[in-house]
């Protein structure tokens, strides 16, 4: 009889206690955010998509060298013979391990995987894997002058490449011509 009454009292007491706990949780503010509309505040040192501070980067290529999966593709060009400017700085996130080595090795501490204001990008969801090869320069956003320089360099390169291709084609065409003439000659010879 005593156990019986104690069970009744216990069940009431524990239920009320449990409801108090949930009530406390009810009053606590939400810990989740509406993700696509609101960005999640990320802790410092979070490993997301890289950002490059092009102003202090010294173009030492250390990051590309240390990368264990060789996913950093970088190329720098001299602009107007005075300063180096990045032409290509791509990171292929199909390969990247987020191992943090490129960040640690950087002598100028200018490549990061967390944006220091906590707005690091981390969503890599896509239905096209080729889009995962990100251009870090564009991604971060260069200063206006740098952007102009990069565009200029790229245009020049494209022109150069086109000229090269053209020259090669001409050369090839010339070679082909020579060859065919040779053949003709040979044919003539054999005909004689």
């Amino acid at each position: 009889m005593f156990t019986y009454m104690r069970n009744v009292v216990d069940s009431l007491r524990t239920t009320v206690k449990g409801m108090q706990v949930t009530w406390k949780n009810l009053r606590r503010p939400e810990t989740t955010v509406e993700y696509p509309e609101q960005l999640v505040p990320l802790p410092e040192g979070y490993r997301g998509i890289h950002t490059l501070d092009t102003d202090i980067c010294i173009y030492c290529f250390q990051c590309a060298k240390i990368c264990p999966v060789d996913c950093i593709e970088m190329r720098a060009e001299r602009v107007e013979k005075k300063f180096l400017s990045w032409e290509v700085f791509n990171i292929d996130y199909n390969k990247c391990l987020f191992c943090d080595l490129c960040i640690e090795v950087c002598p100028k501490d200018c490549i990061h995987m967390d944006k220091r204001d906590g707005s690091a990008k981390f969503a890599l969801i896509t239905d096209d894997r080729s889009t995962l090869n990100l251009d870090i320069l564009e991604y971060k956003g260069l200063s206006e002058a740098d952007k102009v320089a990069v565009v200029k360099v790229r245009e020049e390169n494209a022109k150069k490449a086109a000229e090269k291709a053209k020259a090669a084609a001409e050369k090839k065409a010339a070679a082909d011509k020579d060859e065919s003439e040779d053949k003709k000659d040979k044919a003539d010879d054999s005909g004689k």
Partner: protein
Amino acid sequence: MERLVGALEGLGESAFALSLLMCAGVVLGFVGIWPLFAVWLERKASADFQSRLGPMYVGGFHGWLQTLADGIKLAFKEDLIPAQANRVLFWIAPAVAFCGAFATMVVIPIAQGVEIVNLDIGIFFILAISSVGTIGVVMAGWASNNKWSLYGAVREAAQLVSYEIPIALSLMIPIIAVGNLRLGHIVGFQCAGPEDAGFVYLSHHGWLLFYSPWTLAAGLIYFVASLAECKRAPFDLPEAESELVSGFHTEYSGLRFSFFFLEEYVFMFVVSIVGALVFLGGWQPLPFVSFQFDNPLMKLIGAGILLGKAVFLVWVQIWLRWTLPRLRVDQVMTMGYKYLTPLAMLTLMGMALYQYWGCRYIPGIL
């Protein structure tokens, strides 16, 4: 059949049929809209209890249209019937389960004198008709030809049959005080006042919950047993999703599945509003101070208060659901047979003696 229907009876057969159809339409409309709100409330409340946000997107304000979107999605889903199922039973089971919850609505007064049928056995009718839902659930479990469904159905049958005893006994206790089974009269008893009462007056009895210690205990027993009656946690064994794969509706999909869902939420509302009417003074906002609810405007306000109380009780059910873990089968049976039933009997006896020796007036008996 008195009030609403009775007034139209004199107009002939067609008018009578029309009025019946109208009443059915009103109930059906409410039954369609209420779960939309209740499911949204449940989602938001559970999110709050877990420090989440819950639905936020559909419809703009806090995802209030989310349930409608889900309902439309359910309606367009493929309606699968297992090859080995008993097709006829499988088809009609959701309808039977739904009717049980649906039919109870006709005797519920929403404000003073506003009810579809003023049955003199109101509470008895609700208790009797709500058991029809059990038959629907058992039919569903049996017809699915699935062991989980069958387990769910058997659990449902065992649980509902055993909890019907304490729920009926606990509803008997206020009836001893009132001496009438009409729901309207039970509310009338709680707000009965002096003959020459003005707009605001001190009622003789107050809410039945505070009428005597026995009715207070009865209220608690009713609430616990009603949780079991509408298969809510911690008594949600028939549809235990983690152990029985949703129990009796494992095999149901699409619109038929949504009927079971509607039934559950409508039944939650029914037990809550009956609790509000019987124990919490119906449309009277305060325990011992009553107001005159006789003109249309006041009736509208009264209906709002009653609905508010019902929603509050539903919210408490949700609160409990997100607080307590599910009980084991033997614990549910122990609770029903060893605790609630004897306690309800004791309370009933106590209340009877209280009424006999106490100086309270029992209308209709003394």
